[in-house]
């Protein structure tokens, strides 16, 4: 148990800077959801039923435009497509778990829970209690998201705009990704994905992000293949 607890707390700790970065977004979401005409309970429960920031923002937008329900559902699906990449990427590290654990961790699988967890798993490999790390990170984010949604609903987006708390998000991702860039395929994957993300920024529904990620994956894999066929590995 203490090993599990240690992992859980390590996951929570790794998540803390992301919690700070996400907080203003949760409050803005709560405030926008009410403006869009959602009831207090629908606004709050969307944060636990859907539990996906960007999809929730798009949903409030579509609700305020009176879009048909099936359009909203389809949009949520497209915006959340990137989670399949996370699912594939984490699968090898979760394969020995029970179905119940897999379901629980899947429910908690967001951008912000994925990032610290996969960085840890790729570094340390599969360990007996390592799923508790993802659980800690995911649960901390979930709990935080419910609280900041509620504050946004009841107080409005009360954080002054000149406080750049949201900048904690890209900064944390930078702190996580830079140490991973140890060889040329990794650097090329990161740079090509970044450049495509800039070029494809105007695509709707986060499709630019997916296109960029797939490009980076392809570039990295091809370069790695070339390297190992040269006999160096």
């Amino acid at each position, binding site marked *: 148990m203490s090993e599990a607890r240690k992992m859980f707390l390590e996951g929570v700790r790794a998540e803390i*800077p992301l919690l700070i970065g996400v907080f203003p977004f949760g409050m803005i979401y709560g405030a926008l959801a009410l403006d869009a005409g959602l009831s207090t309970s*629908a606004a709050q*429960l*969307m944060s636990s*039923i*859907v539990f*996906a920031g960007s*999809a929730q923002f798009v*949903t409030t937008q579509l609700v305020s435009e009176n879009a048909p*329900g*099936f359009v*909203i*559902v389809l949009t*949520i699906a497209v915006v*959340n497509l990137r*989670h*399949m990449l*996370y*699912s*594939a*990427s*984490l*699968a*090898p590290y979760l*394969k020995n778990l029970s179905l119940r654990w897999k379901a629980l961790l*899947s*429910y908690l699988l967001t*951008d912000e829970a994925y*990032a610290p967890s996969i*960085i840890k798993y*790729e570094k340390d490999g599969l360990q007996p209690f390592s799923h508790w790390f993802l659980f800690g990170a995911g649960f901390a984010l979930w709990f935080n998201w419910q609280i900041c949604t509620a504050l946004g609903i009841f107080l409005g987006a009360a954080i002054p705009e000149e406080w*750049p708390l949201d*900048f*904690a998000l*890209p*900064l*944390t*991702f*930078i*702190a996580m*990704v*830079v140490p991973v860039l140890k060889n040329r*395929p*990794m650097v090329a994957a*990161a740079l*090509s994905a970044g450049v*495509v*993300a*800039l070029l494809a*920024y105007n695509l709707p529904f986060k499709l*630019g*992000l997916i296109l*960029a*990620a797939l490009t*980076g*994956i*392809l*570039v*990295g894999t091809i370069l790695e*293949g070339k390297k190992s066929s040269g006999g160096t590995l």
Partner: protein
Amino acid sequence: MNIWLVLILGGLITFGMRFSLIYLLGEGRFEVPETMSKALHYVPPAVLSAIIFPELFYRADALDISLGNTRLMAGIIAILVAWFSKNTLVTILVGMVALLILQLL
């Protein structure tokens, strides 16, 4: 469509996508091809950069590659700090302080 039905369907689809490959690749039903397992190691750098770049380069929905883009400058400082220190907390603190100072200038 009732808003609750929309939320429940949206939630189910989101869960389904998050669960999909954890389930399919994790049940040992089929062997994951070597190329694919190689490719999966590039998901973290690719996805994280795809999130980071627009956050730094786009201000108010416009590409801004100038010294006046405070987030880009603070981000570059953070990348350098991360590269040399490999320390998460130091990177975040220096990046945040850099942004606050640049905003005052």
